[in-house]
């Protein structure tokens, strides 16, 4: 059996078709690969869940008593913040994942294949999105157990989850760029994580912003992350939704979408460009 070839010109592969159809198909092939990996390394999903669950419990029971929010319980105030922080932490997985693929030579293999240039990254972030949706689902159930409630309708609640997923998707492209820019998976993990703490804490996620010093309030109100948290509070009907007189807090749904789409557009463009031009 001739396993190799029938000589130049006699090869069996179709020429790449290009275009959107090929991009969608290639992205799906890559996404399926990454989803399979998740089912085979469930530890990653499990540990990805443990951190937000721990935050829910620590903030609710340890600090909850000390923090007063107007118009409701701290636990209800907190949950949208934890949800948003959880999807934002998808950055870490995205940056470590692509850095690992580069270190193992898989990115070189993909780049040598006649596939859509953006598909490796798009497929990976698509799989991250599925993971985020799963983690959010479990986390919402934990939140319900500790007393969080949705006070508006189901469509509003679904809208809030969609905004959260959009934020997570945008952030996983930030992680992708970080991962492509660093040499080792270890460095990518740290670099993916380190800036998330200030970003998520200098916001309205954990404490009412009006308790902060004035200059910090401005940062917190304009933080892209705060817009999504505020939008979720509005849509879930959780306390703390009464916004300050700054535009993103007055129009949090629009602000959340704008921020996420802006981040998504910028970082997917930068990432695909970096991937295309060769990584090292």
């Amino acid at each position: 059996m001739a396993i190799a070839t029938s000589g130049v010109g006699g090869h069996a592969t179709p020429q790449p078709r290009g275009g959107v159809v090929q991009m969608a198909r290639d992205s799906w092939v890559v996404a399926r690969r990454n989803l399979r990996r998740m089912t085979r390394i469930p530890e990653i999903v499990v540990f990805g869940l443990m951190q937000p669950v721990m935050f829910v419990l620590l903030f609710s029971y340890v600090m909850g008593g000390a923090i007063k929010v107007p118009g409701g319980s701290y636990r209800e105030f907190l949950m949208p913040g934890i949800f948003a922080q959880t999807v934002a932490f998808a950055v870490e997985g995205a940056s470590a994942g692509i850095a690992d693929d580069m270190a193992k030579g898989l990115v070189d293999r993909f780049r040598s294949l006649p596939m859509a240039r953006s598909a490796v990254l798009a497929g990976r972030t698509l799989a991250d999105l599925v993971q985020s949706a799963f983690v959010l689902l479990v986390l919402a159930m934990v939140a319900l157990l500790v007393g969080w409630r949705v006070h508006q309708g189901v469509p509003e609640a679904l809208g809030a989850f969609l905004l959260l997923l959009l934020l997570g998707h945008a952030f996983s492209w930030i992680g992708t760029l970080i991962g492509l820019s660093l040499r080792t998976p270890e460095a990518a993990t740290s670099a993916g994580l380190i800036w998330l703490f200030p970003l998520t804490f200098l916001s309205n996620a954990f404490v009412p912003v009006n308790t902060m010093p004035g200059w910090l309030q401005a940062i917190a109100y304009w933080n892209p992350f705060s817009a999504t948290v505020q939008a979720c509070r509005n849509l879930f009907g959780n306390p703390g939704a009464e916004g300050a007189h700054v535009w993103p807090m007055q129009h949090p749904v629009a602000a959340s979408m704008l921020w996420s789409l802006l981040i998504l557009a910028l970082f997917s463009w930068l990432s695909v460009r970096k991937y295309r031009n060769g990584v090292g």
Partner: protein
Amino acid sequence: MRAAIRAVGLVKTFGDIRALDGVDLDVPEGAVLGLLGPNGAGKTTAVRVLTTLLRPDAGSAEVAGVDVLQHPNRVRSLIGLCGQYAAVDEYLTGRENLRMVGELYQMRARDAKARARELLEWFGLAEAADRLAKTYSGGMRRRLDLAAALVARPPVMFLDEPTAGLDPRHRLALWELIETLAAQGTTLLLTTQYLEEADRLAYDIVVVDHGRVIARGSADELKARIGGERVDVVIHDRALIGAAVAALAPYAAGRADVEQHPRRITVPVSGGARVLADVIRELDRRDILIDDIGLRRPTLDDVFLSLTGHAAEEGDPGKDA
């Protein structure tokens, strides 16, 4: 014969390092070219340029008649690449790895599936096909990696140090596979630091060092360049080294090389086995006890040493750009 791989004046610099400094390559269809050089010589950079992973700063290249810089995606459907690491997804099974690669070569799902089965069988991985690749041994991963490169029956294959990190048994098995591929008509470009590997697998050898081609030709031509055969003799008694050198003098075609510690004397000769017999008789007549003796043809190691002034194993490991 048509060229399957042609490169003209490839230049690539990384900062101050000229990884490629004007490399020309010409590999006829169906040939096996060995790109030989130490770490950091520019072998991997050359492969990365030819496989569309890296744009050169200057120069041009064609693979299977298609311009690498103008039509990279068309080139990608015509090549198979085995990099230095076995680029397989550890958390997919062998079968899933191959099907994924097939689909990304734009094969229909059904064809990719059939091709995966065929390759798993051919590479002796049928039994392990549905196990995660992380349970595979190093040799099995290498085979899976090679199978992945073959999914699309590419007419041109690039193997970057295919046997790096393999034990001798697996290396031998891989050599046999590569020989089979070559016999089936695939054009192969393989890089190696192992001189015996280039000697065994490649008819044409290009020696690179510091981004430049410093020699090209068949293994025999390269060996002929540094002269013919030599007699290698290890004598039993160190005190008799001087006497032995004197005894060998009439047969030597050049200066004798003496290594004190292993008590080894190497002299260039001409005349082959007949000289060897004469040398043995002469040493025996003078009561110089021989521990080991042989007629040695120059190896590519010798060629390398004489071309570059340093041995192939030298250089800076891990700095192969």
